[in-house]
């Protein structure tokens, strides 16, 4: 998935400082399959503080939650509408803040 734009590159640099234990193959957030992304999904490509949401080549919004900081912002914006499904990672997995 291509992540476009200079700011996205900068957020990856920021996330690089963080510690994660990624639960491989068990993403804790899923985007509901769609043809055309809703306004909420489009907003997530900007609002997610970890830049986890991005457009794929065919214009749908996808998520790679590896850098997720589990803040829940996307859940507040897009869970009720059914655009995404959100659960916490299994115990011990996900972001591990050194300082918080």
């Amino acid at each position: 998935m291509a992540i476009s734009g200079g700011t996205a590159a900068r957020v990856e640099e920021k996330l690089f400082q963080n510690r994660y234990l990624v639960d491989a193959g068990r993403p804790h957030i899923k985007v509901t399959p769609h043809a055309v992304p809703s306004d909420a999904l489009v907003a997530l490509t900007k609002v997610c503080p970890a830049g986890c949401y991005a457009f794929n080549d065919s214009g749908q919004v996808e998520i790679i939650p590896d850098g997720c900081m589990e803040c829940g912002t996307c859940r507040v914006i897009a869970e009720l509408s059914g655009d995404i499904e959100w659960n916490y990672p299994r115990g011990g997995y996900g972001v591990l803040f050194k300082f918080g």
Partner: protein
Amino acid sequence: MLEEKFDAIVIGAGPAGNACAFTMANRGMKVLQLERGEYPGSKNVQGAILYADALEKLIPDFREDAPLERHIIEQRIWMMDDRSSSGMQYRSEDFNEENPNRYTIIRAQFDKWFSKRVQGAGALVICETTVTELVQEPDGRVIGVRTDRIGGFIKCDVVVLAEGVNGLLGERAGLRGVPSPSSVALAVKEMHFLPRETIESRFNLTGDEGLVIEAAGTITKGMTGTAFIYTNKESLSVGIGCLISDFAETKETPYGLLENFAAHPSVAPLLIGSEIKEYAAHMIPEGGYKAIPKLFGDGWVIVGDAGQFVNAVHREGSNLAMTTGRIAAEAIFQVKSRREAPTAENLSLYKKMLDETFVMKDMKKYKDLPKALHNKHLFTTYPKLLNQAMQTWFRVDGIDKKSKENEIAKSFVKSRRFGLLSDMFSIARGWR
């Protein structure tokens, strides 16, 4: 599988959960606390400022071994436009007291310490365990929890929901609603490391003295929000947060805002040469009194951020978390010691006791303020006007003072005219 039944299960090991578990365990109750992080604190994010009073009520001698950063002796409040900052500053030697009132802390370290005290009081704390579901009787009564690690369900008399602002369990059990995007802020923060001496000379500090800066203005691009710089011993916590509804509308990126703030000419010289070691994000409940959900029911109570307990005006949250946790524990203990069932009616004692504390009084006092502050002029027009006025006032350029005063007055009237009065009125009313 845990066969035994607990008096209480506390979900989450932040300030609210820790205060609650500590108090109940201290009273001799059988307490289980479940935390999904690798260790208590590893999922928790805050600015962070610790208010001593709430913790003193739990652990009077906390200063002896709690990991505290700096005690705060100076507060700066900035109104910023793109090139300037005007401010208010308060510094007092009175804050260099034997038992200081406010400290900066690093939450991952502080929460770990707090949890050791909880365990020392006799609570069983299990980490790396995500609670997946509240177990309810058909009539809704909560009788235990299911987790992703311990088989079967764990039974208890009362579940304490200290699951934080992004708490799924209470919502999914239908005990409270999903927070609305306009009642929650998203804040992002970076930890900038610098040598101790550099921090002390840049911020005019000696020893363990600390300083905090809160800033508002065009840095949030018209969104309702604030930024901050807090001095720790060897690091600066630098962050910015805005309402999620505003982020969704403006499509601003949180990390873009943070970069802009850090690059502001009033901020950049304070950060120069720092090494960034972590980037964190967290939601903050900002809905105030009107967003507080029902706090108790048959077999359950809600404490801390999960109950929207944040005083946005005074930047208080962790102290409200600790206080709600402590009061909930006292109420649960009273019900138990009377050998009564933890019904909604009996647990309403928690709300009654809380109403008598500063927590509910302050939440109530500011109940209309979140709406009044959701006004883009406060974050664009006024900071610009203020900074322009300051410049007009201070710049010496051969123009007579009377003309300068007229120019300042005219600039305010021209920009907002009737709006200025109504903005002032709605804030004053919200403050009352």
